[in-house]
């Protein structure tokens, strides 16, 4: 396989890996809690890119049946699965997006609570305060 078609075949998956690792790095190595939360969102978004990439089919169009507005009577024979991209990953990712938003909301709420308690969002400063309090 030559290099161009290799890149075309795998570029999406490589991008998702890079995004995933960017997010994971931010969550592991960053000191600021909000940066960690941003990392978490990137991390989740990478998985969404991965799923949506699975769903793509060459030569397929949006998963909405063309000329399907007469409620399905007499159009069945025209529908070929190869004409439409795979709808299932899109459905799953709609759910995953909502889960991501929900997690983000709760994470921000907790970050606000942490800020109210310590007056800072930097982890090392918080740790210092905890050590001082014993």
């Amino acid at each position: 396989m030559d290099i161009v078609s290799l890149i075309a075949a795998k570029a999406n998956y490589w991008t998702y890996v890079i995004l995933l690792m960017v997010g994971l790095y931010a969550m592991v190595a960053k000191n600021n809690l909000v940066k960690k939360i941003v990392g978490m969102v990137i991390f989740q978004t990478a998985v969404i890119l991965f799923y949506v990439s699975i769903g793509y089919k060459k030569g397929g169009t949006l998963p909405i049946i063309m000329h399907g507005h007469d409620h399905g009577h007499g159009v069945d024979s025209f529908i070929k699965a190869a004409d439409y991209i795979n709808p299932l990953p899109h459905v799953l990712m709609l759910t995953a997006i909502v889960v991501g938003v929900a997690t983000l909301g709760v994470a921000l709420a907790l970050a606000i609570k942490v800020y109210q308690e310590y007056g800072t969002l930097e982890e090392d400063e918080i740790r210092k305060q905890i050590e001082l309090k014993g």
Partner: protein
Amino acid sequence: MKILGTITILLCGGLLIFFTSDFPDFGDPKSPASIHLSPYFIEHTLEDTAVPNIVTSVLADYRSYDTMFETTVILTAGLACFLLLRIPTKEVTRRYYLHEPTGVTLRFDGDRYPKGSNVFKRIDSNWVPYDIIINFTCRLLIHFIQIFALYVVAHGHYSPGGGFQGGVVIGASIILFAISSNLRASIKRLGEKAAAIFTATGVFIYAGTGALCMVIGEHFLNYSFLAPLLGTDRIMARSHGIFIVEIGVAVAVMAVMIWIYYNLSSAGKQDEGL
């Protein structure tokens, strides 16, 4: 920590990229994901549910149970933000008022506020004057955004869209209003209690439809048993059932976006904020 993190991440990333070599090519129509299950959805959506948008039919019918819990997840998030952050507004004692004839700003501690006064106007502590252009533009836009949102909800059967997307757009329009004027003006129009009750109602519409199907039929969320109630055949009953639950999703998502925004932007005080 940083070095350890970097090494771990490089290793993980290398491993992940190595494993992609075995993947089917991007867009390969012969990959297992494209030939095992998904052709059923594409080929049968019209005869099963009479909904041309396959994403909608899978989302709200074949995998409707997932979507019910998706709605529940955001209800959970709304409740979680409320439980973690909310403090009663009564406990917030410091407020700022603008004396409009003179433009003097006064700070009040305790609860001796000039209630019902014509000359004093409540302002935020980080209040900035002269936001008339933003305010006016947003007021103009919000109606169109909301009408578009209703279109997205209602047209989810035939075009990209549906309850979740439409609900988010309505929620965003109200958040835009809160940003362009202020939080109190928004809370006056759609209070926290209303937002919470709307959220629960949205989930209730969804789960209640499911339970109704179970009571008169045999499976949870099997809309075809609603046919006698809706006065249509079993296939169209599925289409209508999808529409009902999409409305539930839209209401829940709209309300929970607003509810979470109220709590996050004011750190739970809901007195002033962005």
